[in-house]
């Protein structure tokens, strides 16, 4: 979709110039996944496959409701099921729709070395422009949510697009359209945040004291948010990070060392150049050759006068 939506970039990977952003008068969008209303029917997974023409190879039953077992280049969203016992010993079946969180500050985009392979539109959607992808896997290292998957066939990275093609023409994402319970909602980020507030109130009134909205500030918020009944411990939902943020290693690698390294290389090269300008080449002088020759002659003479057998046959040495 890069051609249609290439004038509303707010971020563009591996780019040092301001991306084309004239058509940026658009609302930031968000998908709100209300975990408390999800029944685990996987309609969202099916709709995602259907709209995006994705078909994961059929695998094997591994004793889990998760199907398939993980995200892949062909699986962009996945219901993850967790059986969790609360403090009172009550069993809760936690079902979380996993997929790209569309971070406001995307770690994948920060890590990507290929210009324009990852972009963020003014509406907040983070998209992979696969034509530009080089398959290095840096996005995997940048992502705090373990989302991107590299295809072993075409060596491109894939993830949920938030149906940027649908959203671009005023439609809601396919998963939202398919959800039968209204557990997945889509709209402006403000509306979704407000709606989540109502849902959280409702959950609290029903005894979920720690209900809350998952819109992690560590990545400046996300454009996919969760309503969690246990927002105090997100990790019980199949390992949803408690405090996601771009790794400090990635921040260092993609931050200060880039300019410092280039400056260091340039400085070393310049130091060499100016040494040449100031001191000039170190050349062998005629007297070096003369002294060297005297030393060689002396060495030969010593061998002979000492009466030592030369280390080499004489005829070979003269």
């Amino acid at each position, binding site marked *: 979709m890069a051609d249609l939506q290439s004038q509303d970039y707010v971020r563009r990977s591996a780019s*040092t110039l301001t991306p084309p952003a004239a058509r940026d008068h658009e609302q930031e969008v968000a998908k709100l996944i209300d975990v408390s209303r999800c029944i685990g029917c996987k309609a969202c997974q099916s709709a995602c496959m259907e709209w995006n023409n994705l078909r994961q190879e059929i695998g094997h039953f591994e004793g889990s409701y998760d199907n398939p077992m993980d995200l892949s280049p062909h699986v962009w969203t996945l219901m993850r099921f967790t059986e969790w016992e609360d403090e009172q010993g009550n069993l809760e079946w936690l079902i979380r729709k996993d997929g790209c969180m569309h971070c406001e500050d995307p770690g994948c985009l920060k890590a990507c070395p290929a210009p324009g392979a990852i972009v963020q539109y003014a509406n907040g959607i983070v998209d992979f422009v696969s034509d530009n992808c080089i398959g290095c896997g840096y996005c995997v290292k940048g992502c705090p949510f373990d989302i991107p998957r590299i295809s072993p066939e075409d060596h491109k990275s894939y993830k949920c697009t938030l149906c940027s093609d649908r959203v671009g023409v005023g439609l809601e994402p396919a998963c939202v359209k398919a959800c039968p319970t209204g557990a997945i909602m889509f709209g402006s980020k403000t509306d979704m945040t407000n709606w989540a507030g109502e849902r959280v109130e409702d959950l609290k009134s029903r005894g979920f004291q720690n209900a809350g909205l998952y819109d992690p500030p560590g990545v400046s918020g996300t454009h996919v948010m969760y309503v969690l009944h246990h927002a105090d411990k997100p990790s019980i939902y199949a390992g949803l990070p408690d405090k996601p943020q771009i790794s400090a290693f990635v921040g260092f690698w993609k931050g200060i060392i880039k300019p410092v390294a280039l400056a*260091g*290389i340039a400085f*070393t090269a310049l130091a060499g150049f100016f040494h040449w300008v100031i001191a*000039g080449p*170190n050349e062998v002088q005629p007297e*070096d*050759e003369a002294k060297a020759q005297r030393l060689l002659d002396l060495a030969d003479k010593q061998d002979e006068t000492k009466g030592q057998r030369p280390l080499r046959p004489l005829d070979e040495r*003269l």
Partner: protein
Amino acid sequence: MTYPRGSLIRNTTATRINHWITGGCFVLLLLSGLSMFHPLLFFLSELFGGGQWTRAVHPWIGIVLLVSYAGLIVQFWRDNLWSWDDIAWMREIQHVLVNEEEGVPEVARFNAGQKFVFWSMALLVPVLFVTGLVIWEVYFSPYTTIEQQRIAVLIHSLAAIAAIIVWIVHVYAAIWVKGSVRAMTQGWVTPGWAYRHHRKWFRRLATTGSRGPVPNNDAVPARKNS
């Protein structure tokens, strides 16, 4: 390979081939690596047929470099062992830098600067290789955690920058000290060159009647002193 009459052999043919395979790999790795390191240098990936090709070919070149550099280590490690003479030489480095080597402690086959380059690369090349394997997505990504890969890619970048800086020092020194490039292309130096820059090495060749590169190396003909 025939060498001019009266010349000394600084590097054997095998050493020179080994060196230039290493050097060629290093330059290719530098260009492809920098293209993936900084956006301003991404255009360098075009030299390799685009980003995908650059990403794919970089690690293979790295393997060739590792093997090749191992060959250099085998050939050079003994003459690069550190000694107290190196400290004395480094104390006089300010004279060396202005091309006044007379009076500076005599140097054997390699001076302290050359040893620094040798051992820096002997450290950095394996570090780059191991961290490179960890981030070689196509074949090795399943064997490490993402956090380990983050650390590996950071170390890989830092080690690469260090190696590039050491490499610039190496290349410049070869240009600066006239006769060094020929010593690695055609393999020979004049006795005066050896006397000026590596007098201790030169004295050993003279007293042992060897033509180099190491005393009594049977692989090369004896010195013709005429």
